[in-house]
């Protein structure tokens, strides 16, 4: 059985995001080999009912965006889709600028964002990771769940992602002085 098919089986069985490292470990291959096979799988799934998702070097399978409405009709519990103005702003900052510190979110929004950040974390739309430059502090980044809610298989598919990622970073740096 081809590596890409074995990956598909693992992701299907796991039903939750798996890191590239873990995936390589399970399949007893190098991360490079797993990465290559993921590209193959991604291509094979094009146009199909399920898609390969990636976020923060984690990988998962999910239903295709085009099937969103159909599957939604099968979901029983109601989903809270109201983000509010503060939630939208904060999600935009984290999606386009993440991983980003809370102090920088505050700086951009001009208000204390601790309540809204916590709210988005509880909803599973953003997550906290250790700051590689400062072990005592945290950074916030978008979750796979957020991407799924936005109908994206990866963050780079966000409109204007590349343009604003770089441009805004240059400005955000000023808050670090």
């Amino acid at each position, binding site marked *: 059985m081809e590596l890409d098919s074995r990956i598909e089986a693992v992701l299907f069985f796991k039903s939750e995001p798996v890191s590239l490292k873990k995936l390589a470990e399970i399949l007893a291959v190098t991360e490079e080999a797993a990465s290559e096979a993921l590209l193959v799988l991604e291509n094979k799934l094009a146009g199909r009912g399920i898609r390969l998702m990636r976020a923060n070097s984690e990988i998962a399978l999910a239903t295709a965006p085009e099937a969103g409405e159909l599957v939604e009709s099968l979901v029983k519990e109601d989903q809270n889709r109201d983000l509010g103005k503060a939630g939208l702003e904060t999600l935009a900052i984290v999606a386009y600028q993440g991983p980003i510190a809370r102090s920088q979110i505050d700086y951009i929004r001009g208000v204390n964002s*601790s309540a809204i950040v916590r709210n988005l974390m509880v909803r599973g739309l953003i997550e906290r990771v250790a700051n590689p430059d400062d072990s005592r*502090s945290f950074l916030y980044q978008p979750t796979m769940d957020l991407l799924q809610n936005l109908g994206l298989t990866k963050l780079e598919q966000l409109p204007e992602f590349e343009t604003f990622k770089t441009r805004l970073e240059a400005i955000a740096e000023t808050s670090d*002085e």
Partner: protein
Amino acid sequence: MENRFTIKAGEFEGPLELLLDLIEKRKLHISQVSLAQVADEYIIHVQRLGQVPMGDMANFVLVASTLMLIKSLSLLPTLQLTQEEKQSVEDLERRLKLYEKMRELSVHIKERFGKQILYNRQPSKERPIVFAPAKDATAASLHEGIKRVLASLPKREAIPQAIVRKVISLEEVVENLADRVQRAFKLRFSEFAGQYKEERVNVIVSFLGMLELVKQGIINVTQDSHFQDIAMETTKPGVPRY
């Protein structure tokens, strides 16, 4: 126990949001000129804010004082600004542009969120539940776990000392600014000749009154801080600077 985080993350309008709204309402672009134009209106809004947490009120007042600087400069271009004042003027303009950009980008999130969701597999009801104990789950480790959970609950956030200090020193800054504008105004009074003379004088007089209002706002804020039991934490990096 502190449960301050239960305060709802409501639609609280922040200072940058208010400022941007005022500029956009007049269909202006962000610039020092447009900031000077909306300064009065901004301050009237801030006066009407009512109950706002101390930390947030400080942010409003800090922006107000920078707007006052910008306005002073637009009325009396000869007014000398210190290096720090110049920087806070530039900083406000830059931050406002950054905020504007993010607000624009948030439209993409709004347009997409929840529209075409990619779903995970539902938890299978078919999969038999087989009791599979974990080696690390013991009465002691659960005890440790619950202690960790309680210890990591959010504490009531201390207002960064730097903000408090800045607001307190602002009182002096505004007083000083009022002095400088008044002096420059008297010095230049003779220059305000011609048909617009009266108009110009009126503008500056009302501006001085506005400065007084800002000062009062600042005094309010600093007084609040005396009544509140503020835990003075060390300043975190990246605290907003105006």
